[in-house]
C-alpha cells in the first residue's frame, strides 16, 4: 500500500472533503444506472490504484455476497412492475424489481468502495483539522479521545497481565473471559478518570482557553487544491442541475424506461470526470514517478 500522503491523499483536506461529499451525495441518492455504473467503476479503479490487485481479490468475496444479497432480495419484497417472471406465494416476481435490485446493489457496493478509499485518504488528523475551526471544543474532545484510545488499549493489556499474574482470573472459557474483561475494564476506568483531572489542571496551567492562541497545521492550500475544488464544483453543478431538471431521470416501475436527451449526456460526461478524477490523479502521479526513476 502507498503512503497516505501521496497521490490523491496529498491534496488539502478541504479539497478532499468537498470532493468526497459530492461523490457520496450523487452516488447515494441518484438512482440512474449510468451514474451508478460510472461511480462503481471510478471507486473500483481508485481502490485498485491505492490498494493493488491482491487486496482487491482478498476482499472481493465480501462485496460479492453483499451485492448478491441486495440484488436478489429486492424482487422478493417489491412486486411493482408489469413483466412477471414467475409467481411466488401468489405474488409476482417481476423483471423490473430485479433490475431495481441490481441498480441498488451496484449503488451500495460503489458507496462501500468509496468509503474504503475515504477511510484511508481522510485520516482523523485531516478530519480534526477541518472541523477544528467550526467546532473547536468538540474537535479538542475528538483529538484527545483519539490520543487516549491507543493509550487505554495499552494500559488495558498491562492491567490484564498484572491481574492474571496475581491469579484473579484464568482467562479460560467464555464466562471467565467476559468477567475478566469487565474487571480489568473497571480498573482501567478508575485510572483514566483520576488521570483526566491531572490533564485538566495541566491544560489550564499551560493556558488552554486563553484568547489569541493560534493553531498549528501542516496542510498548505496550493494551486492544485484550488484546481480540484473548481473542477469538483463545476462537475457537481452540472450533475445537480441535471438531477433537478429531471434530464437524467430513469424509471424502473411500471416498466424500465428513460427519457434522455443531449443534456443527459453532458451530465454523464461531467459525472464521469468527477468519478475518475482521483484515479487520473493517481495514475499521473505513478507515471511521473516511473518516468523520473528511469531517467536516473
Amino acid at each position, binding site marked *: 500500500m502507498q503512503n497516505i500522503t501521496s497521490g490523491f491523499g496529498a491534496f488539502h483536506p478541504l479539497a478532499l472533503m468537498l470532493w468526497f461529499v459530492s461523490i*457520496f451525495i450523487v452516488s*447515494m*441518492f*441518484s*438512482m440512474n444506472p449510468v451514474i451508478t455504473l460510472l461511480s462503481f467503476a471510478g471507486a473500483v479503479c481508485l481502490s485498485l490504484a491505492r490498494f493493488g490487485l491482491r487486496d482487491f481479490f482478498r476482499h472481493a468475496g465480501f462485496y460479492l455476497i453483499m451485492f448478491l444479497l*441486495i440484488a436478489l*432480495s*429486492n424482487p422478493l*419484497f*417489491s412486486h411493482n412492475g408489469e413483466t412477471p417472471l414467475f409467481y411466488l406465494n401468489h405474488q409476482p416476481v417481476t423483471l423490473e424489481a430485479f433490475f*431495481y435490485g441490481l441498480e*441498488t446493489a451496484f449503488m*451500495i457496493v460503489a*458507496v*462501500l468502495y468509496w*468509503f*474504503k478509499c*475515504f*477511510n484511508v485518504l481522510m485520516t*482523523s488528523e485531516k*478530519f480534526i483539522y477541518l472541523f477544528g475551526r467550526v*467546532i*473547536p*471544543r*468538540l474537535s*479538542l*474532545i*475528538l483529538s*484527545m*479521545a*483519539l490520543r*487516549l*484510545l491507543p493509550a*487505554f*488499549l495499552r494500559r*488495558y493489556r498491562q492491567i490484564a497481565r498484572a491481574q492474571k499474574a496475581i491469579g484473579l482470573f484464568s482467562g479460560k472459557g467464555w464466562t471467565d473471559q*467476559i468477567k475478566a*474483561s*469487565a474487571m480489568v*475494564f*473497571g480498573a*482501567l*476506568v*478508575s485510572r*483514566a*478518570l*483520576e*488521570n*483526566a*483531572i491531572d*490533564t*485538566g489542571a495541566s*491544560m*489550564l496551567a499551560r493556558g*488552554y*482557553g486563553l484568547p489569541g492562541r493560534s493553531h498549528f497545521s501542516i496542510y498548505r492550500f496550493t494551486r492544485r487544491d484550488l484546481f480540484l475544488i473548481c473542477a469538483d464544483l463545476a462537475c457537481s453543478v452540472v450533475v*445537480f442541475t441535471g*438531477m*433537478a431538471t429531471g434530464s437524467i*431521470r430513469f424509471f424502473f416501475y411500471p416498466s424500465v424506461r428513460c427519457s434522455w436527451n443531449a443534456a443527459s449526456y453532458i451530465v454523464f460526461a461531467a459525472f464521469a470526470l468527477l468519478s475518475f478524477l482521483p484515479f487520473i490523479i493517481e495514475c499521473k502521479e505513478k507515471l511521473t514517478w516511473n518516468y523520473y526513476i528511469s531517467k536516473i
Partner: protein
Amino acid sequence: MKRIFGLLIIIVFIPALIVLGGFMFREQSYTWLAVCIALLSLVPVFLNFEKKDLRTERLILIAVMTALSAASRMVFAYIPHFKPITALIIITGIYLGAESGFVTGALSALISNFLFGQGAWTPMQMFSWGIIGCFAGLLHKPLQKSLPLTVLYGAVSGVLYSLLMDLYSTLWFGGEFSIARYGAMTLTSMSTTILYVISNVLFLLLLTRPIGKKLERIHTKYGF
C-alpha cells in the same frame, strides 16, 4: 445580527435543503430525509455545547468517556455485536448529564468508526447513540436510584438502536418504506438485537455501580 443569521439558517436554509434534496433525488428522497434528520439533529446540540460555559475538566471527562467507550468496542472485538459501548454511553448520560451523554454517544460512534471503518451508517449511528445517551441523562433521577430501571432502559435502547439502524437500511436498500422489507430486516437481525439487549443488560449490571461510584467520587472530590 448573528441571531438573525442563525434564525435564517433554521427557518430558510434547512427546510430548503431538505425540500431541494427531496426534489432532486426523487427516488431516494426518504433516505435523503433520514440522513438530513440524523445530521441536522447533531447541529443544534453541538453548537449549544460549543457556546456553553464549561470547565476544562468536564471536557476531558467527556473525552475520557468517549475514548473508553471506543476502547470497549475494541477490547470486546472477539465477540461480534457484544459490546459495552451502549452501556458506557448510558452511564455517561446518567452521571454527566443529557448533553454530555449525547456528545459522548455521537463522538464514540465517529471515533470507533475511524478504526472499524466509516460508512454510510456513521450519521445514523451517531444519531442513535447520541439519542440513547441524551435520554439516559434526561431520566437520570429515576435511573440513578434504581439499578433495575437502568437495566430496563439498557434493554429498551438495545432494541431501539437495532430498529433505527434497520429502518435506515430499509430506506436505503429499497428507496421507500415497505413494511414487508422492514419486517424481514428486523427478523434477520433478530439475533443481533438479542445480543445487543443481552450485552447492554449484562454490562449495565456489571459496570453501572463501579463506574457510577467513580464518577460520583470525582464529583465530590473535585466538584464537577
